[in-house]
């Protein structure tokens, strides 16, 4: 029979061995990185690609706020009929549906706020709060947030800062609670909503040559980030299902062509803002666009049902 003292001894030795293994791994990684100076990396891009000891990889999707800004910059108009009705919120009772629709409502909220639709902004913040609470993300959006929006209805800067802070709270709480899969589903929900609003706002692409179509084409690049992001949590059943949906979307996007030329940096000494110059060639046929629009609508209908 093992005594309490022996048990403690075995446990201590096991911990020391485990710590030793982890330390060895860290030190080996450190040595590999220490051998590379930034100059060496800059002069030999193949050397950069040989770095295999990356500790952490992030796949960053456009947030609901960025999606809404992209929409507005590309000439979108405000159409409240496109938003997911807040009356649908009572239908969302599963983790997946609440997470997807927290993302969807967050994009609707951002879209409304950028078009100074204050009442809609408050309405969508309230319903986002409900979704967040349903997911157990307590305190991410509290009553003071709603009050702050109400008190600053004419101050877009404060409204955007407040929305940004609630997104950061939600994302960081999920990360802290080790619920990365839920965070990914929220982000993908928000991204699909942006794509839905954008494709809905374009009627017949054969008659228009506008920035909105360009931005819709560009989402082919973000779709790769979506797939990589979801792949990180693929063992989660909800994520797996969403990943399969995104593979369906990828098939449709295969008819959309993007080629990117060499990127060059031009530094503006006065504004201190650098410009990355390149020549992208993109193309989408009316048929491919219509297929894309139909697929996006189908997915969005599925997620908001």
């Amino acid at each position: 029979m093992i005594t309490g003292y022996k048990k403690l001894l075995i446990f201590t030795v096991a911990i020391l061995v485990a710590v030793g293994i982890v330390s060895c791994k860290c030190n080996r990684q450190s040595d590999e990185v220490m051998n590379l100076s930034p100059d060496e990396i800059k002069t030999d891009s193949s050397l950069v690609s040989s770095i295999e000891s990356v500790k952490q990889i992030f796949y960053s999707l456009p947030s609901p706020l960025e999606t809404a800004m992209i929409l507005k910059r590309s000439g979108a108009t405000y159409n409240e009929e496109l938003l997911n009705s807040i009356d649908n919120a009572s239908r969302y009772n599963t983790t997946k549906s609440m997470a997807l629709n927290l993302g969807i409502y967050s994009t609707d909220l951002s879209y409304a706020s950028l078009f100074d639709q204050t009442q809609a902004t408050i309405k969508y913040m309230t319903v986002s709060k409900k979704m967040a609470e349903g997911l157990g993300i307590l305190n991410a959006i509290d009553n003071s947030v709603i009050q702050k929006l109400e008190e600053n209805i004419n101050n877009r800067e404060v409204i955007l800062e407040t929305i940004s802070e609630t997104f950061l709270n939600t994302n960081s709480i999920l990360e802290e609670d080790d619920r990365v899969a839920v965070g990914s589903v929220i982000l993908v929900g928000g991204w699909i909503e942006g794509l839905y609003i954008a494709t809905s706002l374009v009627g017949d692409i054969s008659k228009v040559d506008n920035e909105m179509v360009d931005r819709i084409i560009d989402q082919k690049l973000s779709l790769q980030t979506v797939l990589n992001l979801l792949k990180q949590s693929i063992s989660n059943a909800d994520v797996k299902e969403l990943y399969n949906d995104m593979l369906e979307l990828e098939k449709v996007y295969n008819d959309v062509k993007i080629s990117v030329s060499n990127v060059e940096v031009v530094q503006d000494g006065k504004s201190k803002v650098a410009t990355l110059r390149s020549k992208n060639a993109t193309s989408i046929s009316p048929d491919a666009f219509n297929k894309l629009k139909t697929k996006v609508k189908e997915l969005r209908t599925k997620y908001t049902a």
Partner: protein
Amino acid sequence: MFFAIPFKTHAQCKNFAKKICRLELSPYIHDGNYNAAILTEGEDAELFKTFYAGQQYRIAVCGSETLTKIEFMVMDVDRKVLYSNAKNNFATTWDFKVENTQQLIILVKVPVTSPKDEELKSGCVAIMFGLKTD
């Protein structure tokens, strides 16, 4: 005890990102995404993101006070380095816009500055993006 430590460091990382790094983005508006991790000297992290034509961005890469400096590089998809803060006095931010929508990679490294006989330091590293409003 073993579980309390990671939780505490996560919480510290969250507060660092929110209360310190986020301020570096001003007057740009933070996009709301949270990309932060605990890194040890000698370790690195990579972030993949699409940047959209017409939008002006600020990248802020910050390390908590235990880490003296953080290196970051912005690379295109062929891993050609477009910007390195090591060439710019380890600036914590970089402002840029893209003529055409681009996928870029942000490579972040924590250089080893501790003496050889001392334990390597760890701390929170946050990568945050600011969006310029009209």
